[in-house]
């Protein structure tokens, strides 16, 4: 019996070490960590989780403790051990352990409803942003901020001001998607034929990772976006630039060993035979396609193909050549197969296209990645 406490101590130290490393790992600032909130909605949820977590730990320790104690204390020590007393039950303890969990869940319910009410508030002065889910990318519209009644339209990067409530109006173009920015707010579905709302306020500037969280078909895993929270002045600067169509393209860019010409790239882009404008739009040009993402100021995107590749001219070049491999099932490469691209776009033309898309830039001071 003398060795028992010592070995117990050793084990508990070991378990504590494991537990601590788990906690440290869990609290690390991974880009999707819900334990590391930067938005009011996510913060309230996190603050609700903490007391529930402690209660859960209490229940866990009591039940598992009783279980382990019972195994250790009451295990049969010898064959033919004496028959234990045949106890059939006890109404008083039954009532006790019916009421005990009832009280615990009552407390949890009250805490829950409070947080629920707080997170359901939708202030009138919130900035409205329409988010539309597509297989497999996110479109964002700023209906109240456009020029001449036309909303500012973009995709994959959702700019928001810090410190001002944002109400995201959620819709879907095809199947059900799920809008999730773990560090800012909980999930809300984007459902075809239904409009949902989600309100939250970013508390710190930052680039936040976000994903579609509802299975939506082949490339569900590759349907991501970024929420870019900047201070109000920077946000207004961004939206003012977005309202003005890009100026005439000019300039050269070396991509994949070839020198692309932005002006020539625009001509290719607008050439109906090259198919780009069948799906894509660029403000201020004849490109008015509505099926794919709006490419206005594409050169300032953070990512390519809905969050799967960091934006760079080289990656854009890869994407134009290798879309089916990079994002299996995507609509563009189902229509314009690699064979079609090979037959209809020369390497030089692809370089020109990349140069054109890269030439359209807005100037924004980017916040840190969170």
């Amino acid at each position, binding site marked *: 019996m003398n060795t028992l406490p010592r070995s117990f101590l050793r084990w508990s130290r070991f378990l504590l070490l494991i537990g601590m490393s788990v906690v440290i790992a869990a609290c690390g600032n991974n880009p999707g960590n819900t334990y590391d909130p930067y938005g009011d909605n996510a913060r309230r949820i996190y603050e609700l989780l903490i007391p529930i977590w402690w209660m859960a730990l209490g229940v866990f320790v009591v039940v598992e403790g009783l279980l382990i104690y019972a195994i250790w204390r009451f295990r049969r020590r010898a064959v033919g051990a004496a028959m234990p007393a045949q106890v059939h039950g006890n109404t008083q303890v039954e009532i006790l352990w019916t009421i005990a969990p009832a009280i615990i869940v009552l407390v949890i319910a009250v805490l829950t409803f409070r947080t629920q009410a707080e997170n359901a508030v939708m202030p009138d002065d919130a900035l409205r942003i329409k988010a539309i889910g597509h297989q497999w990318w996110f479109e964002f519209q700023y209906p109240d901020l456009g020029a001449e009644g036309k909303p500012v339209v973009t995709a994959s990067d959702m700019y928001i001001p810090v410190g001002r409530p944002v109400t995201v109006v959620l819709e879907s173009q095809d199947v059900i998607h799920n809008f999730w920015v773990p560090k800012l707010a909980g999930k809300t579905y984007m459902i075809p034929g239904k409009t*949902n709302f989600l309100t939250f306020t970013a508390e710190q500037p930052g680039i936040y990772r976000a994903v579609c969280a509802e299975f939506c078909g082949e*490339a569900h895993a590759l349907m991501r976006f970024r929420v870019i929270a900047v201070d109000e002045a920077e946000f207004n600067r961004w939206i003012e630039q977005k309202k003005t169509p890009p100026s005439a393209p000019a300039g050269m860019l070396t991509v994949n060993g070839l020198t692309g010409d932005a002006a020539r790239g625009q001509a290719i882009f607008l050439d109906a035979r090259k198919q780009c404008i069948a799906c894509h739009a660029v403000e201020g040009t004849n490109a008015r396609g509505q099926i794919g993402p709006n490419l206005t100021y594409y050169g300032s995107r953070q990512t390519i193909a809905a969050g799967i590749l960091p934006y760079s001219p080289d990656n854009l070049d890869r994407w134009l050549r290798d879309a089916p491999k990079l994002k299996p099932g995507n609509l563009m490469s189902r229509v314009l197969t690699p064979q079609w691209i090979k037959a209809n776009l020369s390497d030089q033309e692809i370089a020109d296209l990349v140069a054109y898309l890269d030439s359209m830039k807005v100037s924004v001071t980017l916040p840190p990645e969170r």
Partner: protein
Amino acid sequence: MAIAERTAGTVSPPSVSVRPGWAGWLSTTDHKRIGIMYLVSAFVFFLIGGIEALLMRIQLGVPDNTFLTPDVYNQMFTMHGTTMIFLGLMPLNVGLGNYMVPLMIGARDMAFPRLNALSIWLFIFGGLMLYVSFFVGGAPNVGWFAYAPLTQKQFAPTAGVDYWIIGIGLTGVASIAGALNFIVTILNMRAPGMTLNRMPLFVWMQLIVAFILIFAFPVLTVGTIQLLFDRHFGTRFFLPNLGGDAVLWQHLFWFFGHPEVYILILPTMGIISEVLPTFSRKPIFGYAFVAYSGVAIGFLGFLVWAHHMFAVGLGPLANAFFGAASFLIAVPTGVKIFNWLATMWQGSLHLTTSMLYAIGFISMFVIGGISGITLASPPINVQQTDSYYVVAHMHYVLFGGAIQGIFAGIFYWFPKMTGRMLNERLGKWQFWLMLVSFNLTFFPMHLSGNEGMPRRIYTYESEMGWNLWNLLSTIGSLLLAVAFLLFLWNVLTSIRRGSIAPADPWDGATLEWSVSSPPPVYNFAVTPRVRSRRPLWDEKYPHLHEVNGSHETPAARLRGLLYDGAEGEMPMAMEPIHLPSPTYAPLIVSVGIMILGFGIIYLGDFGVIAASAMLVGLLIMATGILSWVRISHVDSPYQAH
């Protein structure tokens, strides 16, 4: 009694009892053989579902892996979920129930033995149809929950979804028929003296599950048939752009889907309510509370379906209601857990493999219950839903809970079913390996989920910080596979070389241990008289029997006395034994229904061929039904030995 007098002496031993070899299995109506067929086929499907899980885990072991293509991965998780739920867990529970319920209530068979045979065949064919899809254009790839409108033809053009609809439909018919069979059997065929309040708790839970099933399953069937019509025949139930409603599908699906969880877990709660008392050498603590908390769980299970839909935008009020109802389920669940602990308390715990699994059930199910509480809270839920946290929660309930419960049951009843003991040493190795590797696989998923990893993604980026958790999960899953191989090895060797099982190897309390291992085809030569909750135990230990114990209500005691009083009038030894004859009719009907199902799948695309197939199927089905009707009155009773 009148029947007994009329048939006694006029009928000699039956002309046909059991056909030899394969024919015996194909034509059987014996609940024990059907139970074994359920267990074996479900275990095969279970292993296939496990292989699908392993493939997924290998894909997710490292970031940016290219082991599986996204489409194959999507097929894998769809088939894994569908297989484990409809073809694995459910039929494993049905198999144990099929074998054990008649034995535990002192009956000779299920109430409708031929319907029972129809159920097993429809289940097997339904499962096979699901798997045929792999060879005809691809398995379903829309998730086991098949959310509309992703299931519509424009988004899911392969026949996989159609095979899913028909496969699930066949197993659904099998389940509903089986549930009716269980209800009638349990309510009508208990041995004299076995009041409802004397029924073994496993039987109680099977009864509750049967009721849940007949209310929940038809809703799924209706939903899937609507989906079939949407896909092929121009309806638009779930098509939002044509006036339908995508959310309607979710209501239909989860109105079935949540009670389904209790369909999976309650029988295993019943199992451990048998195993814990036996190996604690005590009666179950709070019998009535354990039984009626099961009823409460079954009832509440129908009021919580929308907790799967907190992110759908049903509104704060609806979410609050469904959250509160979900919290409530913690109460009867807690009652059960405390009663199990109290059953062990001051007992004499015999730590057999079966008992270890029952204890493992409690310890892991508690974790699943706790993570269930956070998921039931709507605000927390919207962070955790559709993330790996849910995967962790659900596996703690269905693997740590249900699978461990089923293993407790298999190690407990294997000797009864086969006449051989499973190897205990191997079983304990399996238990410990499984417990460790289960936690290694699924515990990290709580963390990856809360760190933002969504479900059903075939790949992830290294910089998301989920690498360690996923690697641990993958290593755990490979070790889990070893644990299952140990079990397979144990079964295959023990069934031939295991030590011979006596009738009552565990010093049990209930009726199944009063007959030989394996039981004779007629189960009981003489229908037993039941005077308490532990008929065999009280016979073995009469000095421990509390006639006036607090565990029986006065009313139940009175009913018991009435039966006891009538004892003298009952023929005890000369009772002829009525057993159903073997028949191929249920098999033929099932084959017909399956061919009909193939026809339906292709009716939209290949009208004439499909219609002819349907016609052939209907004809085969009609033939089967005719022969079923013809043989239904020629059963030959035979004399007790």
